[in-house]
């Protein structure tokens, strides 16, 4: 019998989470000014970016802090998707051309953890599609 939470669709166990880094989304050091970076997140392949003030240690701490059942949005195809937000409510990065304090964290069955900034609206859209119950709690906690 498959034990929910410990085994994924393939029947393989979920490994302990380990941070995988964020090469694609890591802050751009000594690069364009933030407004240009932010605008770039809404162009081309729309790659979200962490803010230049975020260190990799801070990003790792942030992403690893929300791997729990309270922040689990859904599980699909061997990936669990969680949400998180900056500890003080400040901007952590940009996505789709907007500053945001929210992130999405992907935890792969093999244990790798990888996250990126996400807009509040896209988080809401994601919760509405996959976890309406969590959306209610989310809107109570983050009304605007």
């Amino acid at each position, binding site marked *: 019998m498959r034990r929910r939470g410990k085994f994924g669709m393939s029947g393989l166990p979920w490994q302990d989470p380990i941070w995988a880094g964020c090469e694609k989304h890591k802050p751009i050091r000594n690069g364009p000014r933030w407004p240009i970076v932010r605008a770039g997140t809404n162009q081309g392949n729309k790659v979200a970016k962490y803010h230049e003030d975020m260190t990799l240690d801070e990003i790792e701490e942030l992403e690893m802090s929300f791997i729990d059942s309270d922040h689990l949005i859904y599980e699909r195809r061997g990936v669990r998707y969680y949400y998180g937000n900056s500890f003080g409510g400040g901007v952590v990065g940009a996505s789709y051309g907007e500053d945001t304090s929210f992130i999405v964290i992907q935890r*792969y069955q093999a244990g790798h953890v990888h996250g990126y900034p996400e807009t509040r609206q896209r988080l809401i859209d994601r919760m509405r599609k996959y976890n309406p119950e969590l959306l209610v709690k989310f809107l109570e906690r983050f009304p605007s």
Partner: protein
Amino acid sequence: MTHIDWTGILAGRGTVDFSSLEIPESRDEFETDVAQLSLHRGFFIDVGWNSDTARYVVTLFRDTFENALAEVECSTPSDVVEAVRQLIDATDRTVQSASSLHTNSSKFQFQDA
């Protein structure tokens, strides 16, 4: 869905940073980050999903994502695997002249088969 054995494809030439075990034929708008592979000498391969175009995007970059050396758009998971193989091989071939690759700011656009 296509099962992906990145470790076998890498064959000791890098490591899997993250990836799901299988790649479906299509994804929804929220499944943007598919896989990332670390190669030697600071090279990375990112596999992303562009929901606007409904195509996979395979990017070879060095050190930072902004230093993209090649970008390949793919329609299917099998195209993704082939593109990754070609980029790994290309990196192998050019590793002796990596500095020239590194300083080439042009972005190569490959047409998938």
